[in-house]
């Protein structure tokens, strides 16, 4: 048998191999014809989804950036963190050199008015300006402008700079009162070792803060009580529900009421 004969045998019988496709083959073929259209619609969905996501992300970012609530909250929670609230950081930072100057002039002005300070002012001035330079300067500068001052002095500020040994030595007990041009109450008290600047102003923000404090205190109290009652429960002692802010009588009354209502409904 020649190789070509083998080829011939197979070619003759298999070249036109009869075959019948499955009955659902045409339907499947039509399904296969559709994918391009489907793919395009999917692409549209993906685009829409990603755009929506971007918008949401943008809104969220914008809110975080500019919401006034978050700004105040941050300062309220950290009353001692810094003298200047985040909202106002820009002003003091840029104007510091100028403000230091104004502070000095103000101290100089103050020198002229109360004569008793004059004697020692030469010693103290550098201490006041240097020891407190960064924190005090903006405060005094702001006192000059009442509008600005009201904004910033909403919070109580207490400064306790490190005492300078020279001061301790030279001035055992002195009191210096500084008065700004607008007569706002600025009291700089120099005691032997502590310089205190106390500025108090009534403002809604302060009320808000005290409210928050109260709230916090109440919550801690409640938490403590809950913990205590839980311990009681664990140890098998009596649990005082009243201390948890739960009124058993009230709950029982409510229970009764609900039962009555249910009974009425059933009888109807």
């Amino acid at each position, binding site marked *: 048998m020649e*190789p070509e004969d083998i080829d011939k045998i197979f070619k003759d019988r*298999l070249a036109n*191999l009869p075959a019948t496709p499955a009955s659902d083959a045409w339907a499947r073929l039509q399904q296969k014809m559709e994918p391009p259209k489907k793919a395009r619609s999917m692409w549209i969905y993906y685009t829409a989804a990603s755009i929506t996501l971007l918008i949401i992300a943008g809104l969220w970012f914008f809110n975080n950036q500019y919401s006034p609530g978050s700004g105040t909250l941050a300062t309220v929670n950290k009353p001692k963190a810094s003298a200047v609230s985040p909202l106002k950081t820009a002003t003091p930072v840029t104007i510091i050199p100028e403000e230091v100057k104004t502070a000095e002039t103000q101290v100089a002005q103050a020198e002229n008015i109360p004569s008793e300070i004059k004697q020692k002012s030469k010693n103290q001035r550098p201490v006041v300006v240097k020891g407190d330079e960064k924190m005090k300067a903006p405060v005094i500068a702001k006192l000059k402008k009442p509008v600005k001052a009201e904004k910033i002095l909403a919070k109580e500020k207490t400064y306790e700079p490190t005492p300078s040994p020279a001061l301790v030595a030279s001035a055992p007990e002195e009191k210096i009162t500084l008065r700004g041009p607008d007569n706002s109450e600025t009291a700089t008290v120099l005691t032997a070792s502590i310089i205190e600047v106390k500025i108090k102003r009534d403002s809604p923000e302060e009320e808000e803060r005290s409210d928050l404090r109260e709230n916090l205190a109440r919550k801690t109290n409640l938490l403590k009580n809950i913990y205590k009652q839980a311990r009681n429960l664990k140890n098998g002692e009596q649990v005082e529900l009243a201390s948890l802010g739960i009124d058993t009588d009230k709950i029982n009354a409510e229970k009764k009421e609900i039962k009555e209502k249910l009974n009425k409904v059933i009888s109807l």
Partner: protein
Amino acid sequence: MNEPELIKKLQKGEGKAQKFVYEKYAGSMLGICFRYLKNQMEAEEVMLNGMVKIFQNAHQFKNEGSFEGWMKRIVVNEALGYLRKKEPLHLAIEKDHSQLAASDASAESELAVEDLLQMLHGLPAGYRTVFNLYAIEGYSHKEIAEMLDINEGTSKSQLSKARALLQKMLVRSEISNN
């Protein structure tokens, strides 16, 4: 409907013409796929994919040669692509096969189509592919080398090995028949 008319309608994407072509040629195209692929489901899948390609690329048919030949080529290519993806063709398999055995087995013996198909399926995929392309489809070794991305020598050696194996099978079936 004559062929040029049919092709024009097909190129316009008319569903009626597609259905007509499918009904006329699906059987023979499936037959081609059966020679390359053992599994019936796979063969049908390849045939359908080939049909989709035929319909979607009908505008590329340039009236050179017969339309049926063009369709066949697409389906064969589809089958080759499927084989390449699914199982490497193992074209490098070099098994030692004895030379064609001298046998007087008559080529005229009535062998059922199913038996022949089974023998073909008994060949390694690489041998089967080359044998199909050369002996049945009628491609030259040069064309086959291009289609399968092998060199002509490989195509020739694969063909002779396929023939040797098939002859062995033919002789064996001859003996069992007598």
